[in-house]
């Protein structure tokens, strides 16, 4: 009798497990077809000289050899890493500033939050075009404003001048979805910091800056980690959607904004070298992995967990 019951229970258990797997099935099929298979296929195709029209031949590591001897590639790799790191830092700082401002309880906070988050829902193409004209040489808003203050006519082509392009591009990243998302997450994280900690600081007479570095930052560090991970993915992903309409597929000026994703697109569709583009995608894939590992390695040292 007891035996019978336990076998029935285990049968029931197995049935429950099967139900769970059935629910997971859509994800698993999708994961196999749209993630795992493309990854494998990417590695294989990177060893061929596949063209856009589908003709391909196995050529071993020739794509990688070409890549490593190409200055365009090295430039793109450098720009990608630089762009990703600076974008994460700049947008995170801006997001924290906005979150701290919003967490200072005042009237009209709802309206302020609306304004702060609104650029995030604007399509990146529209954003890029807005800034192409704002940063434009003739009749650009920025030049006009500076001219008023400087008292003379200023005409800088902000996006095509090698001295100003990074300033302009990173300023534009403040308006991307990434920043808005971080701001909202930081806001709720800052709200969760226990008030008593600040009160203790006040008793000790700590300055605002010390309060921030000794209380706020450690308390929100797990969220900083999460934002860094998400920011890294969206910087690698979003750089294409932002820079393609902004500075074109050649990453003007002089390839200074030529991130790897733009190079992948250019090689595959303008030069029709799909095999080579796959080799570049492999590098992009590993860059993403390295960023992930690096962020977790840093976090092991820097992130403070309450429990």
């Amino acid at each position, binding site marked *: 009798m007891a035996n019978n019951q336990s076998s029935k229970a285990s049968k029931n258990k197995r049935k429950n497990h099967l139900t769970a797997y059935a629910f997971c099935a859509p*994800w698993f099929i999708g994961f196999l077809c749209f993630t795992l298979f*493309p990854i494998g296929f990417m590695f294989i*195709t990177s060893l061929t000289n596949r063209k856009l029209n589908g003709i391909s031949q196995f050529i071993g590591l020739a794509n990688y050899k070409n890549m490593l001897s190409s200055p365009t590639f090295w430039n793109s790799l450098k720009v990608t890493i630089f762009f990703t790191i600076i974008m994460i830092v700049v947008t995170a700082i801006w997001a924290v500033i906005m979150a701290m401002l919003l967490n200072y309880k005042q009237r009209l906070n709802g309206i*302020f939050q609306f304004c702060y*988050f609104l*650029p995030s829902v604007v399509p990146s193409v529209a954003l890029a075009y807005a800034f192409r004209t704002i940063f434009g040489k003739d009749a650009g808003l920025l030049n006009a404003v500076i001219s008023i203050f400087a008292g003379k006519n200023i005409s800088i082509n902000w996006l095509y001048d090698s001295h100003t392009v990074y300033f302009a591009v990173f300023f534009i990243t403040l*308006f991307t979805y990434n920043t808005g998302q971080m701001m909202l997450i930081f806001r709720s994280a800052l709200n969760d910091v226990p008030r008593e900690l600040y009160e203790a600081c006040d008793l000790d007479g700590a300055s605002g800056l010390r309060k921030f570095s000794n209380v706020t930052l450690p308390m929100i560090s797990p969220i900083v980690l999460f934002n860094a*991970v998400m920011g*890294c993915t969206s910087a690698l992903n979003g750089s294409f959607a932002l820079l393609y309409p902004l500075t074109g597929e050649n990453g003007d000026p002089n390839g200074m904004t030529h991130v790897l994703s733009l190079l992948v*697109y250019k090689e595959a569709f303008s030069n029709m070298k799909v095999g080579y583009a796959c080799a570049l995608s492999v590098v992009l894939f590993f860059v993403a992995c390295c960023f992930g590992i690096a962020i977790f390695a840093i976090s092991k040292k820097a992130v403070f967990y309450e429990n």
Partner: protein
Amino acid sequence: MRIKRKDGEKMYSARTKKKIERIGVISLKSIVAVIMFFPIVWVFSGSFKTLTEFTTSANIMPKNLTWENFNYIFKNSNYFLYLRNTVLLMGGATLGTLVSSSLVAYPLARMEFPGKNAIFAIIVGTMMIPNIALIIPQYIMFGKIGWLDSLLPMIIPAWFAYPYNVFLFRQFFRSIPKELDESAYIDGCSKMGVFFKVLVPLTQPTFVTIGVLSCVFWWNELTQPVFYINSDRWRTLTIALMTTFMYTSGNTFVINWPSIMAACTLMIIPPMILYLCGSRFLVEGIKTSGLKG
């Protein structure tokens, strides 16, 4: 007597200090708000300017308001075709991800089974792979099965659960007390029954939240359509903004910026309205994505 006065003075100065601080903070807030808002104002105002005004001065308020730019876009391009494509893409992908992601998140939030942690780890891991790294092999793959130049490469994968949305659904499902499930089991509900009769009704706002997030994402999506679509028939508004609207600007030497600004205005307004109506849902969804655990 003297001490009392001193006290009063101190209180008074503390109050003024507080007041100054409040004014300082609110003016900082306003400056940031102006910075965040001016690109949108610039686009809106630009769409009402004439080409000459746009290329000669940087006024915020246009001198002569003109609707000509909007007419130009409607007349010279298949605007409504692009709009239809965008709405189809947005609707198809959003519906797909809502159905599939919620179903996948259910066992991850509620059931115990071997391999659960591994599956969750893979889901979180794949969240970190940037889509752009896999887009070329996917392009070849979709070319082989003849899906290129249609909306299928974007809509079909959405029906197989997005990791990010699975993660969000799981977080929301976990906030519903488990006792409710158990009482439903006692009432004779199956696993499927619990999902449809307990979790779905209780997490309706979650579905709205993830739906709004997904709609905004697909309305704004540029990368995938740029790779997968090349004919006019399936163009979405974002690619039209990069190609058609650019080319229909007439004279090739001068880009007709005001008409492009008009097209941008038309693109900005729907997500803006969506955000205005559903800001509570949007904010809630993004905040939840930052939760630990």
